[in-house]
């Protein structure tokens, strides 16, 4: 049994959200640099240049690159040999979010209740937490700051097995087409295939946080990821939706076993401001 004081988790969560909001990862930056070279639209190249310059200043001056510093989502992968001490783990994660957002000049975007009062909680808590218990004595934290311009354009469908690969392709392309300029293209498109209704959505969210250099380990899915990326880029939406050939920086699929009767597919759209940071304790 390994003991971890929850204050360690708070500290890590706080640092991860600051890092995610100030610094866009080198994998995303590399794709943006490459897209600026390849994009045929002059206005599209300008938009990409503006995004690149923005991200460079954000990193240099420790400023959040987008004012929508997102809903805070934390994936906790917890080794079953770990015993947390010093208080509530859930509250400790929220304390980390609170510290980052109140001290790091990040926007507070969470309302306590969604339908009637919509009163801002003032510290971006509560965050969304997903925990999974695994063998071992380590704790892995993935912090995602998810902007809602792109979250709002995400969709889920319960397809039939007969719809198959073509059905998945159609649904993903249609989702990006319907979103058009709204989710701040170029996008990182997270796709969850299989599982149950809620697992498909969860996999799609996880997919948005994978390194852009990664492909699915099953070559059939890796090929589908590439085909979807090319299909999306043929839609012509372009940077900021002004027209062009850079609409998706990457499509990631995460898949899981599913029921004989179903083919769930979830598409979680993420803007070019793909903000996430991770750490193992």
């Amino acid at each position, binding site marked *: 049994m390994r003991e971890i004081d929850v204050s360690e988790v708070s500290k890590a969560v706080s640092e991860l959200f600051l890092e995610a909001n100030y610094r866009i990862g080198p994998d995303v930056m590399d794709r943006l640099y490459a897209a600026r070279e390849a994009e045929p639209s002059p206005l599209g190249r300008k938009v990409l240049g503006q995004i690149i310059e923005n991200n460079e200043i954000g990193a240099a001056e420790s*400023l959040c690159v987008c004012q929508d510093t997102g809903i805070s989502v934390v994936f906790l992968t917890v080794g079953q040999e770990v015993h947390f001490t010093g208080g509530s783990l859930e509250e400790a994660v929220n304390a980390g979010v609170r510290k980052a957002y109140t001290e790091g000049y990040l926007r507070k975007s969470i309302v306590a209740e969604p339908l009637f009062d919509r009163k801002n909680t003032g510290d971006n808590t509560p965050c969304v937490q997903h925990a999974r218990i695994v063998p071992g004595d380590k704790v892995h934290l993935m912090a995602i700051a998810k902007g809602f311009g792109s979250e709002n354009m995400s969709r889920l469908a319960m397809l039939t097995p007969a719809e198959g690969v073509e059905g998945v392709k159609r649904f993903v392309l249609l989702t990006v087409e319907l979103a058009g300029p709204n989710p701040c293209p170029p996008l990182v498109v997270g796709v969850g295939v299989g599982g149950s209704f809620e697992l498909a959505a969860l996999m799609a969210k996880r997919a948005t946080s994978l390194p852009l250099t990664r492909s699915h380990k099953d070559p059939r899915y890796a090929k589908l990821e590439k085909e979807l990326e090319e299909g999306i880029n043929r839609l012509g939406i372009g940077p900021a939706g*002004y027209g062009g050939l850079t609409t998706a920086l990457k499509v990631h699929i995460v898949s899981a076993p599913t029921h004989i009767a179903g083919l769930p597919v979830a598409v979680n759209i993420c803007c070019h401001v793909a903000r996430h940071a991770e750490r193992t304790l």
Partner: protein
Amino acid sequence: MAKKVTLPLDLATLRSLRAGDEVLLSGSVITGRDAAHKRLLALVEEGKPLPVELDSQVIYYVGPAPARPGAAAGPAGPTSSYRMDPYTPALMKHGLMGMIGKGRIGPLTLEAMKAHPAVYFGAVGGSAVLISKSIRKVELVAYPELGPEAIYRFDIEDFPAVVAVDAQGRSLFEEGPKLYRQTGV
């Protein structure tokens, strides 16, 4: 080469703008997003005075992040414009002449833009730091309790934008993608 445009707008300038024009906006804009729009519309419907003058004004759809000490403004990029569609035509009746935001706007807003007239400027979503460098001064106008959703007045200088939809109803979001589209869904 970007056109220099001074805000608030005059009719001649408004009519000279064409979808796709790159512009640098200078002058004064008011800000507002979901919660502030809801309150403004309620006042309009009750026939009560508004806390902000809309005549000839341009509204920037933004909820800024906090400014660091010494900075005039925090990161302040555009939010999605379509969410303000239920409110915008009513505000145009009060003289609103333009909006700055990102993404599509709806058919009723497009119709109202032709009638009044008004222009819609697109700013690049996610370029909040770069845009904040063009904000010289931030002044609170109304609804401080809404935090980032309060109404502010920004003094801006060379704020980078494009004409996304002009007063003739032409839309960069329709015309731009058509030039590069190689496939349907």
